[in-house]
């Protein structure tokens, strides 16, 4: 087995992985990226609508800042997130947007003067400032107080991924394409790299590194219908899980996006509703204002998806051979807007539905979209259990999303998390030596070789394809938008039975190189373990929080469940994960748990909440009367960042007020 050595190893060449690789390479570390596919084909490219950053250039974003972005993110998470991480994120998001402009992203810009927009189904004229002309624009997205989502038409992920990959190419960072990492090499305390299999030749290779960063995206493909690319299969999470040591966080936190097209599940961006699109039922009736009078179509994603499902359960869905659906109506935005700002949506409608969205309504239904859960990390991106193992982006539970992610915060997490964690990964590379233990490497290599031998030469009789489909159907039927104990238990039992059967997979195609059936077989065993962490976590969590909605426990229960689920898999032959819980400390929160602003406020309060609120009030009372917002924030919940990312962000409002000041000074003369 060939052994390849590097300082920084990154698994996954999407935005998050590439951004970490760039940060390491810029510090002079030898850096190498593994990817299933060419980097520019990564699922990051599919992000359409944009990324949130509180630049506040557009008039509808005026008054925005890190504080507002932080608060939206925490509320959106239903108080399930790590508030320190949400702070680090909100602080660095504007920096990432500006950095990406320097790397070539053609952000859509503000045009000065009047422009017509659609707000609440009515044409409204807004006036953009002269000084904002040419600065980076933002659109409206769900669950946000301000227009904060920076975008390039509706191909934001594409533009970002191309710019970041181009940057990586300019730095000469090698991407080993069509390599699939299948084992993490570790000694129980430190991660030393991975064993990977070449999807073309079948060769097994050991990649040994000071640090290993898993940036393989989410696990949406454990569901039969998902907006995710077909490579988003959770193997990164499984790699960590199979160490038996590292933990996964909040795996039951799975987001369903309100508007994927029926039946294929391809996403139409939240930008459709952000730009003024409406949801209608079988009678053409706009139903969201009845459920959410204030936020309507732009309530948080989990809320809109649940309301749509409720409405369809009342018989208001449109019948189709693929089950009921609702309509997304963007006709009111006009052809020009659709053909410039929503052109990917238009192409998708034309190619997969044969309709013209400027004239026709789009059939949509809530569909699995995002994995809030993932490899549990500290705020520096490192596994608390395995030193040298980092994770970033959707693959990770860094935990800025808690139990529900805001639209525009995932694309943002890839580049912002990558920017921050990239620096910590580089620090790790500078501070640690490469540890080479060939006996250990060979042991993990042999494990994988034995697994492949058994699949190819063994006499197993189960079909990998059938097992996968069975798993995906179980997840669809029992671990969906609305959950209950009876069905979740059924999911756990059936998934465990499938995992048992998976030890008896047999292959029809016996090739050791380029063999799609072997690839499926190696994946399904791992995917089943990931699916079990989702089902078991959901079954155990007897409350409703964010996207995790229990019909039998409809209240958010801060008293008993203000915590993060941790899953591990200590017994390699076990059929269920081990669950434990990490409490969220209310006394350390900047924003103690409160009402999210949707439906009935029925949360069961945490005993510390009131105490913390009083404590915050007294901390603020002790500060000088003219203390600025940075001072107040630091007094309530200090957070750390790499020095280079600490400076405050300048905004148009800062320069405007100084211009006003200058004018006043001039007036005095």
């Amino acid at each position, binding site marked *: 087995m060939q052994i390849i050595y590097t300082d920084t190893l990154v698994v996954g060449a999407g935005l998050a992985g590439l951004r970490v690789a760039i940060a390491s390479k810029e510090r002079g570390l030898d850096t190498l990226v593994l990817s299933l596919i060419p980097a520019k084909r990564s699922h990051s490219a*599919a992000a359409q609508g944009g990324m949130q950053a509180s630049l506040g250039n557009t008039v509808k974003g005026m008054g925005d800042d890190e504080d507002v972005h932080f608060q939206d993110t925490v509320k959106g998470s239903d108080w399930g997130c790590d508030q320190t991480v949400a702070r680090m994120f909100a602080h660095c998001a504007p920096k990432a947007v500006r950095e990406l402009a320097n790397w070539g992203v*053609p952000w859509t810009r503000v045009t000065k003067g009047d422009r017509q927009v659609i707000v609440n189904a009515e044409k409204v004229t807004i006036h953009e400032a002269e000084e904002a002309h040419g600065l*980076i624009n933002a659109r409206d997205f769900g669950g946000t107080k301000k227009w904060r989502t920076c975008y*390039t038409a509706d191909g934001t992920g594409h533009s970002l991924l191309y710019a970041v990959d181009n940057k990586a190419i300019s730095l000469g960072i090698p991407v080993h394409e069509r390599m699939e990492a299948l084992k993490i090499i570790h000694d129980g305390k430190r991660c030393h790299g991975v064993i990977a299999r070449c999807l073309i030749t079948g060769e097994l290779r050991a990649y040994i590194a000071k640090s290993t960063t898993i940036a393989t995206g989410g696990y949406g493909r454990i569901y039969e219908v998902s907006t995710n690319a077909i490579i988003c299969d959770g193997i990164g999470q499984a790699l960590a899980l199979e160490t038996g040591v590292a933990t996964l966080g909040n795996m039951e936190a799975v987001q369903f996006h309100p508007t994927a097209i029926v039946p294929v599940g391809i*996403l139409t961006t939240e930008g459709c509703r952000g730009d003024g699109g409406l949801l209608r039922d079988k009678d053409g009736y706009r139903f969201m204002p009845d459920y959410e009078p204030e936020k309507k179509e732009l309530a948080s994603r989990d809320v809109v998806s649940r309301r749509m499902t409720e409405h369809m359960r009342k018989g208001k869905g449109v019948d189709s051979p693929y089950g009921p659906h609702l309509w997304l109506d963007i006709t009111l935005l006009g052809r020009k807007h659709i053909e*410039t700002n929503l052109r990917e949506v238009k192409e*998708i409608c034309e190619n997969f539905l044969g309709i013209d969205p400027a004239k026709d309504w789009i059939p949509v239904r809530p569909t699995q979209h995002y994995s809030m859960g993932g490899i549990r990390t500290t705020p520096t991106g490192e596994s608390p259990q395995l030193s040298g193992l980092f994770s970033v982006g959707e693959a990770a539970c860094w935990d800025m999303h808690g139990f529900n992610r805001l639209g525009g915060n995932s694309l943002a997490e890839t580049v912002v998390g990558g920017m921050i964690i990239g620096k910590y990964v580089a620090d790790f590379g500078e501070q640690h030596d490469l540890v080479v233990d060939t006996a250990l490497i060979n042991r993990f290599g042999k494990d994988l070789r034995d697994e492949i031998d058994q699949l190819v030469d063994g006499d197993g009789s189960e079909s990998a394809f059938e097992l996968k489909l069975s798993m995906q159907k179980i997840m669809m039927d029992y671990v969906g938008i609305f959950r209950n104990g009876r069905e979740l238990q059924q999911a756990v039992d059936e998934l465990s039975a499938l995992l048992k059967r998976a030890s008896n997979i047999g292959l029809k195609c016996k090739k050791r190189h*380029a063999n799609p059936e072997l690839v499926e077989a190696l994946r399904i065993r791992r995917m089943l373990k990931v699916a079990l962490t989702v089902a078991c976590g959901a079954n155990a969590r007897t409350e409703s929080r964010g996207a995790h909605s229990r019909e039998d426990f409809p209240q958010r229960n801060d008293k008993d469940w203000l915590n993060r689920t941790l899953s591990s898999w200590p017994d390699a032959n076990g059929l269920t994960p081990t669950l434990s819980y990490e409490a969220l400390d209310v006394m350390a929160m900047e924003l103690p748990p409160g009402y999210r602003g949707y439906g009935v406020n029925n949360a069961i309060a945490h005993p510390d909440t009131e105490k913390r609120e009083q404590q915050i009030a007294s901390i603020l009372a002790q500060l000088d009367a003219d203390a600025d917002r940075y001072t107040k924030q630091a007094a309530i919940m200090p957070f750390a960042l790499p020095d280079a990312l600490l400076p405050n962000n300048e905004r148009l409002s800062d320069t405007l007020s100084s211009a006003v000041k200058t004018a006043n000074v001039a007036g005095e003369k």
Partner: protein
Amino acid sequence: MSQARTIRFSIFRFDPQDPNDKPKMVNYEVTEAPGMTVFIALNMLREQQDPSLQFDFVCRAGICGSCAMVINGKPTLACRTLTANYPKGEIILMPLPGFELIGDLSVNTGKFMRELAERLQLWLQPNSIDNDIHRMEQPMDPDEAAKLYELERCVECGVCVSACATKQMRDTFVGAVGMMKIARFELDSRDTRTADDFYHVIGNQDGVFGCMTLLGCQDACPKDLPHMTQIAYLRRKMALTSPNRIL
């Protein structure tokens, strides 16, 4: 509801790593379902009939550019090709020519595109001043940003390369994909490279002066990029830049 059709696929099969294998066409049949795409049909074939069948899909939504192949003689994206578009129910699938064959319908476009990017330096080369990420960004003309995005919509699927007669004859030709990217950076006011710099990489037979203007790229591009306009624009620009003053 009328009875579902049977779609007859004829698929190129070859495993270049198997010394005993020879290229051949193999026939398969699939029962058509409403809204069926070549993506759906190929996965059904792999799952139910032949698990060794190789092909590449990632986003299956026409966004990532992984799945270009030649369908009934035309290079295009398989994921968004509906079987209903073929009234006879006969579909012939061949791998994209002009790229290294991995096996069956899978070709190595990634390697090609990375080499092209390195050769033509396809990344923004900004001047280093005024790039403080903590301060206000530099303004850009909103129309310029919109135009840049239009040119940047290329998904590197390789269709233009496979549809290009020049490329078939001249292996070093940069193809429409290369020229489109050069045009994109040439337009970008943040990029410091001049027409003279670009002349050195595409002002030759491998670039704009090699194009025979058959424009298969324009006809086949799944993203409807303006290849014809951009090649003509670049050709004129390069001619004006040429030391021999062609124009």
